[in-house]
């Protein structure tokens, strides 16, 4: 279907597509097997100027918005959701600076991000604070010209690989959710270290680690936005980043569908290609329809968000939950269509199925997304 992209948007799609074809697909199985971080692919992505897509032009970026990120992520996800997650998580990590940072902070960090010289990560989740993000226990205490952070963040994508970390910490524990603030912690700051690298079911080319802050001292100017507005910035950040995750689902679903159709056309059983059997055709038809519906919803949501509406949480959550549930279903079905071959690591679909699961969990579980949608509906109808 034609989505009437501008010339610049077409260029973004072409560039990301070429990276996927030339740089990601040839190595994705090996990175997955070895649990290896895709560092050289990120350098290719940086050289292609893709990291700058969402950075304003004045800081060396392209000045694109949510829709441009969605386009790039969809193409990268067709290659490997692990690589695409790494890219998406860096964007997520720097969004708080884009949304609430001072001019100084933007000038300091954004040019490096746009050039892909430095990557970011988002530090919110803790062992006792996943879906219940307000349960975080990391604290930030002022001390002269510094803040001192204490606490541990868990399951942080790009942990140990990124240089810039946006950490959500409590500046006033007595105020609960209204007592949180966002800080920039940099690799090398005193008292900042990383835990072991996690061994995951999928997205294994993405690195996931604990972030450990033990009397971590950072300069006063690392506070992002006003003290106490941490969760407001977090919510705004997630509103803009969720369509990106949804887009990973669309790309993954499309890639799985492509494998399934190609296979069904070549595999001959009972004297003909199995795509000739209604059972298979109906599965493929449902898969294709779901992918297209998800794409349409994600694109619509992204364009809506780029128009800077007053309300965006509902559509942002809708596209995330729909596209990621779709990706899980489509990848499982793709394995089924490929049958025995689908189960073997020699074929790409079993990895796709393993990669799909996390999409339903991170950036707000799909249960939380449904909470958000329900609460928004409740507010909308007087």
């Amino acid at each position: 279907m034609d989505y009437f992209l501008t010339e610049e948007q077409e260029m973004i799609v072409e560039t990301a597509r070429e990276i996927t074809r030339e740089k990601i697909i040839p190595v994705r199985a090996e990175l997955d097997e070895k649990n290896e971080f895709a560092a050289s692919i990120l350098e290719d992505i940086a050289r292609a100027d893709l990291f700058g897509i969402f950075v304003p032009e004045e800081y060396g970026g392209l000045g694109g918005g949510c829709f441009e990120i969605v386009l790039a992520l969809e193409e990268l996800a067709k290659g490997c959701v692990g690589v695409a997650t790494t890219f998406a998580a860096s964007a997520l990590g720097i969004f708080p600076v884009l949304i609430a940072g001072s001019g100084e902070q933007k000038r300091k960090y954004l040019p490096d991000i746009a050039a892909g010289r430095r990557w970011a990560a988002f530090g919110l989740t803790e062992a006792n604070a996943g879906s219940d993000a307000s349960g975080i226990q990391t604290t930030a205490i002022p001390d002269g010209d510094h803040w001192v952070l204490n606490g541990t963040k868990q399951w942080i994508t790009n942990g140990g690989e990124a240089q810039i970390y946006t950490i959500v910490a409590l500046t006033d524990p007595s105020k609960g959710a209204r007592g949180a603030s966002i800080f920039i912690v940099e690799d090398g700051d005193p008292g900042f270290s990383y835990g072991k690298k996690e061994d995951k079911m999928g997205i294994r080319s993405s690195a996931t680690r604990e972030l450990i802050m033990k009397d971590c001292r950072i300069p006063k100017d690392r506070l992002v936005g006003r003290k106490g507005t941490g969760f407001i910035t977090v919510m705004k950040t997630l509103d803009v980043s969720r369509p990106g995750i949804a887009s990973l689902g669309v790309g993954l679903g499309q890639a799985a569908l492509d494998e399934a159709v190609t296979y069904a056309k070549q595999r001959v059983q009972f004297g003909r290609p199995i795509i000739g059997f209604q059972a298979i055709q109906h599965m493929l038809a449902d898969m294709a329809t779901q992918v297209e519906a998800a794409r349409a919803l994600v694109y619509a949501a992204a364009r809506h968000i780029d128009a800077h509406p007053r309300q965006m949480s509902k559509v942002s959550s809708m596209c995330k939950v729909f596209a990621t549930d779709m990706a899980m279903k489509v990848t499982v079905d793709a394995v089924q269509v490929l049958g025995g071959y689908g189960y073997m690591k020699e074929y790409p679909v079993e990895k796709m199925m393993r990669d799909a699961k996390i999409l339903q969990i991170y950036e707000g579980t799909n249960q939380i997304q449904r909470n958000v949608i329900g609460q928004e509906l409740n507010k909308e109808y007087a």
Partner: protein
Amino acid sequence: MELLVCIKQVPDAKDVRLDPKTNTLARDGVESIMNPFDRHALEEAVRIREEQGGTITALSMGPPQAEEVLREAIACGADRGVLVSDRAFAGADTWATSYTLARAIETLGSFDLILCGKQAIDGDTAQVGPGLASRMNLPYVTCVQKRRRVDDTGIEVERMMDDGYDVVRLPLPALLTVVKDINEPRVPSLKGKMKARKAEIPVLSAADIGAEKECIGLAGSPTRVVNVFSPEPRGDRKIFTGTAEEQVDQLIAHLRDYL
């Protein structure tokens, strides 16, 4: 360093067609790509510029549509592209082509290093690079698989051989033809693509480069393509499988049957 890269637009391998009148390749309406070896040459030029500074000029001799491949070259890092195009160039063999390119390069200025791909995937002669160097009286090395060192005094490279490689040192200015092993080309960047979209590609005619009529195009080509065809498969083919001993036994039995 002033770098020049020769780039050819070639038909994508699967779409080759012949013009019956001239027995040469018909290029209109066929999917075209940048000759893969030239892509590697361009990438190497970009890497040299990253280390040493300078500019990269991409040059192509071709029909008007070859402008696309020069824009692609700019997207991949060339600073500018120049197209040498004239009806009179049509039908050129490698002799006439190297003459034309040499005239064009001399018109554009002086360069420290000229890079070419080893061969074009449509002609497969691998003659233009050496021909060009000879006409311009430049030292050259073909089949370069690695650049070891380059500076104002010269360049040191590895030349791929059947059983290893030679290390060759040349003074500048010089010409190199490269093989694919030399590098992994980067994906064209967004900024590169935007620059390419807006770029002005000058077109130089035969007159602009001071080319003599007898030396260009079909007129300037001592060789003629008489016929291009896929040979008919001849005779039986048999493939023997198994261990070496088993294959030898099968082969002997087979030869006995024939004798």
